[in-house]
């Protein structure tokens, strides 16, 4: 596959320095995931040309949009970039039809062409009956579709989506998600999708970049991120227990003892090297009221800090433990009842070495 978007730039911001390095293939979606204020929207603004980096290069499909070395700065209206803003920013004084037609009118295309293309676009998004309405009278889901139609009608090579689902209520979000996913998969260009929601990141991202404090701290295919987080932040995003440590002892059986800052874990050896990351799925952790006598190689005891029911129905509960190392277990609400778990109670937590994957 050809690299369609290449962006490498830096910009000094108020709280931190933005330093970005992205390459995205045509036809694929890259998700930028991170907490609000991490600089995700700024990255989109820079790609769209609404802001300029201090230095760097941005190229899309062989066209240079920005190059500080050569002094190239393309204005937003000269870039093939579609932007769906967080609150959509639909023009309040224009009808849905006129909103979608805006980009074509700005190109002074013939009236008949505009009418046909807007009609097709509205039909493609399933909103032909909204053509005459004003944005103020639309639901969140409808507004989102209009915003998409408005951005897509110019057939941009790069589509930027800034938290496209966050302005929607839960019910609508579920409905729109599947549809949006299908739509994005069919696009020939590059899509950049910004979200703070790790679940959305996994659903939409062919690959995922984690943005922390203006830096991309980890980038890779989503499977890689899910299985092998390389920072506590990413692990927490993905809901995993995470340790960074050094191999203290190797056993002939293929197991290894890893010493972390918070305690010792026994894992399936990752091979050579001393430094190792360990991720443990919270569902692999079993809780016991008394010391277990089973085959689990890792047993820790500690007090329950908090019980957090998982959405949507609370059938599963995350149990945050004050063990060494600190662990989060995910068990069924039924198990919580049977074991009589409550905050403050001291319990035993165990997991097998085979559930603790070591990697580097």
């Amino acid at each position: 596959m050809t690299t369609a978007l290449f962006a490498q730039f830096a910009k000094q911001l108020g709280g931190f320095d933005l330093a970005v390095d992205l390459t995205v293939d045509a036809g694929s979606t890259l998700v930028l995931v991170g907490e609000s204020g991490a600089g995700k929207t700024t990255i989109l603004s820079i790609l769209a040309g609404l802001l300029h980096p201090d230095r760097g290069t941005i190229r899309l499909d062989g066209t240079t949009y920005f190059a500080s070395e050569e002094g190239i700065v393309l204005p937003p209206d000269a870039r093939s970039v579609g932007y769906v803003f967080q609150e959509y920013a639909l023009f309040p004084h224009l009808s849905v039809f006129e909103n979608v037609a805006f980009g074509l009118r700005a190109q002074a295309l013939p009236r008949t062409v505009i009418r046909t293309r807007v009609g097709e676009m509205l039909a493609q998004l399933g909103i032909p009956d909204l053509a005459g309405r004003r944005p103020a009278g639309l639901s969140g889901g409808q507004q989102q579709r209009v915003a998409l139609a408005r951005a897509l009608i110019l057939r941009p090579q790069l589509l930027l989506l800034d938290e496209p689902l966050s302005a929607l209520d839960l019910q609508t979000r579920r409905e729109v998600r599947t549809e949006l996913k299908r739509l994005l998969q069919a696009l020939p260009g590059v899509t950049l999708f910004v979200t703070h929601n790790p679940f959305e990141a996994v659903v939409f991202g062919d690959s995922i970049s984690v943005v922390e404090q203006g830096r991309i701290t980890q980038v890779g295919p989503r499977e890689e991120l899910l299985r092998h987080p390389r920072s506590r932040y990413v692990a927490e995003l993905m809901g995993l227990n995470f340790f960074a440590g050094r191999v203290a002892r190797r056993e002939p059986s293929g197991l290894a003892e890893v010493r972390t800052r918070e305690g010792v874990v026994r894992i399936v050896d990752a091979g050579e090297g001393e430094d190792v990351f360990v991720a443990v799925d919270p569902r692999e952790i079993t809780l016991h009221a008394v010391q277990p006598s089973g085959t689990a190689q890792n047993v820790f005891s500690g007090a329950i800090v908090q019980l957090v029911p998982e959405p949507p129905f609370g059938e599963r509960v995350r149990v945050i433990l004050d063990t060494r190392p600190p662990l989060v277990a995910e068990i069924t609400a039924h198990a919580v009842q049977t074991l009589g778990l409550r905050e403050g109670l001291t319990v035993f937590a165990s997991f097998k070495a085979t559930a603790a994957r070591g990697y580097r």
Partner: protein
Amino acid sequence: MGHAPPPSHQSRRRSWPAGLLRVAPVIAGAVFLVFLVLPVLSLLIRIPPGELLQRLGNPLIVQALRLSVVTTVAATGGAILLGLPVAYLLATREFPGKRVMEVLIDLPMVIPPTVAGVGLLLAFGRAGLTGRALAAVGVTIPFTTVAVVLAEMFVAGPFLVNTARAGFEEVDPKYLRAASTLRASPGFIFFHVVLPLSLPSLTAGAAMTWARALGEFGATITFAGNLPGRTQTMPLAVYVALESDLNAAVALSVILLLVSFGLLLTLRSFRISLRR
């Protein structure tokens, strides 16, 4: 047990200023309202409607009315043409000397109109800064209808610039960003996003400008004189009539009053309907 202190003089003394505080604004408000309404009412009841209509046919009045309409429309148009770019510049750009420019634009609103008239006379008069050059190409401005328009523009223009600027500043920049990502040029964005979104303010500004121009007196009489049919606008005609025919002055005043009232009322309902 716990006994509440009996109602004392002190608590009663504390209660009467509170009562006064409640009544005082109502009284003051009523007095002020009467003060504002009384002159208006006096104008309205002085002449019966029949006579008013009859006087509307008086050629002097018709002349003044026509001149006022023509000059104020021209002055408002001129202010829009020259004032909108200035307002847009002030709303969207930062540049050295911006504060000084703002003060210069506000100045005509605070200096006495007669002073403005003298200034205009010195600038465009025969002996003035540009007057000689203008005279050389056969253009004389003072004491012509053009002078009336200039005087009105000078005095009323700042109203347009300031309201339009506020209107431009109110346009949420997110719409401008959205428009520029839709490959719209700055010019297209101005005419298709900025202008329509600030239309309520622009309309209000234009109406205020027009109303101020309609009431212009001091600068006009100083710079343009008081020639019936050429420079004698409604306010000037009122002033002249006051010395000869009180009822004519009243009739002219009532017309001006009704126009102003109608303008304000239309503006109000227009803004409300836009807000819906």
